[in-house]
């Protein structure tokens, strides 16, 4: 379980998160939604330990990443995480194969659960087999030796997904997986998330502002606004919500409590 407790984060005088608390259940996928600029991506970076909160606590399993005193300790907790970035964030200088193999070649070992302290060392052959299995699972055989700029954005997202899954993390974070994609490729990414979750069974956190499309991969939905959590529930509960901000956001209306900045 990911537990976010009373997290505050400001940049200078700008308050981004003002006392957020949220529990993300094991095995479920939770969508964190809200208009642009409400701090969704900041929240995901706080979960990754890339940013530190001003106050509050975030734990993954029974380990508190915000209490980690060194980068090595944070890295140990991050071993349980995989991330699909908004732009896929593939390394330009590496081929599709090398991008997917990167987490394994750099770590040389694998750990499935943040709560366990057991690591398995991997040989070069084992890494190769794991990468080829992942390439096959995500139908990337035709792009093995291509570089990121040579493939479409949809394929890049798939490669990003393969790279995130290669260490078999227990938690997968998706930062706006559909931003900038046309509806067909966007749907392909949602299908990919769903099929990967069925196969690998991870806990998912999806950051998105695409409603109601993101509901198809979500078990729970939490909506952020003005630095706080204004609504939380199942997709059905969100659709039926009487909160005017939720309804304004769902229906894409300009008039309402949400002010366009």
């Amino acid at each position, binding site marked *: 379980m990911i537990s976010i407790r009373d997290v505050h984060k400001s940049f200078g005088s700008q308050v981004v998160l003002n006392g957020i608390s949220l529990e993300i259940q094991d095995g479920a996928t939770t969508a964190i939604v809200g208009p642009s600029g409400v701090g969704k991506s900041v929240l995901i970076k706080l979960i*990754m330990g890339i940013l530190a909160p001003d106050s509050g606590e975030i734990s993954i399993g029974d380990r508190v990443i915000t209490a980690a005193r060194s980068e090595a300790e944070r890295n*140990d907790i991050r*071993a349980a995480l995989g991330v699909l970035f*908004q732009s896929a*964030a593939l*390394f330009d200088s590496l081929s599709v194969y090398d991008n997917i193999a990167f987490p394994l070649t750099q770590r040389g070992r694998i750990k499935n659960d943040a709560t366990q302290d057991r690591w398995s060392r991997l040989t070069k052959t084992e890494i190769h087999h794991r990468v080829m299995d992942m390439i096959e699972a995500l139908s990337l055989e035709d792009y093995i030796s291509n570089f990121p700029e040579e493939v479409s954005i949809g394929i890049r997202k798939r490669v990003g997904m393969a790279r995130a899954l290669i260490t078999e993390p227990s938690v997968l974070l998706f930062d706006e997986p559909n931003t900038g994609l046309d509806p067909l490729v966007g749907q392909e990414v949602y299908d990919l998330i769903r099929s990967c979750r069925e196969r690998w069974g991870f806990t998912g956190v999806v950051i998105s502002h695409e409603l109601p499309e993101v509901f198809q991969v979500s078990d729970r939905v939490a909506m952020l606004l003005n630095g706080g959590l204004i609504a939380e529930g199942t997709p059905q509960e969100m659709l039926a919500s009487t909160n005017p901000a939720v309804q304004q956001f769902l229906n894409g209306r300009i008039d309402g409590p949400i002010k366009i900045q």
Partner: protein
Amino acid sequence: MNAIASTQNLGRMVIDVTESWGKAWIFLFHIIRGIFSRPFRFHLFMVQMYQIGVNSTLVIALIALFTGAVLAVQGEYTLAKFGATAYTGSAVALSLIRELGPVLTALMVIGRAGSAITAEIGIMRITEQIDALRSMAVDPIRYLMVPRFLAGLIAMPLLAGMSIVLGIFGGYIVGVGLLNLSAGTFMGQIYSAVTLTDIMSGFIKAIVFGFIFGWVSCFKGYNCGFGAVGVNKATTQSVVTASVAVLVIDYFLTSILTRIFLE
């Protein structure tokens, strides 16, 4: 009100500059710590040696040849007024070894490879590749900065050495071939005038310039702002800061090294 606003602005500027310097020194500390901690990624270091060193050789060779040639023409012209054209060779060699070789090499490497490093790291920053590294438990300082910093530190003296040799060669071609100076006198004066301390002085300068090159270009890229404008600004600042630092430090190094070696 104007006085208060001016004081506030001054205070803000002092805080910004202090913060920026603090960040730069902490960044350097992390790089140096990264050099001495495992894993050492030798293949990444070799890639950077190729990018910074090998890819800079042609442009530095061209500049060195013509700098040596110009020094020979100017030296012969000036020394002829004192009837001392025999010293043209030593004037060319000493200028190149003590000053122009390391400085021109540093400025060229900063312009060519330093801007590329800042832009590359800056783009990795804005496209979340650096965040991706951290999310995969890979330290971006050790993975990206240490190989570039070390390669700059080692490539700079090698390139400066090559630049000095080619500069003297360019001076020799012009001096002996076009200005009809005696080949024996030209080379003989170099042997008699150049001492080990001159070579040491140039070598130390090249190492210090390599250090500045790596530090500034990596730091500016790693801390670049948002979007294309951020990368543009970081790249410009990187080249300007490193170039000015090289010239300012060159003056102080020359003063200090001259005093040390004279004693």
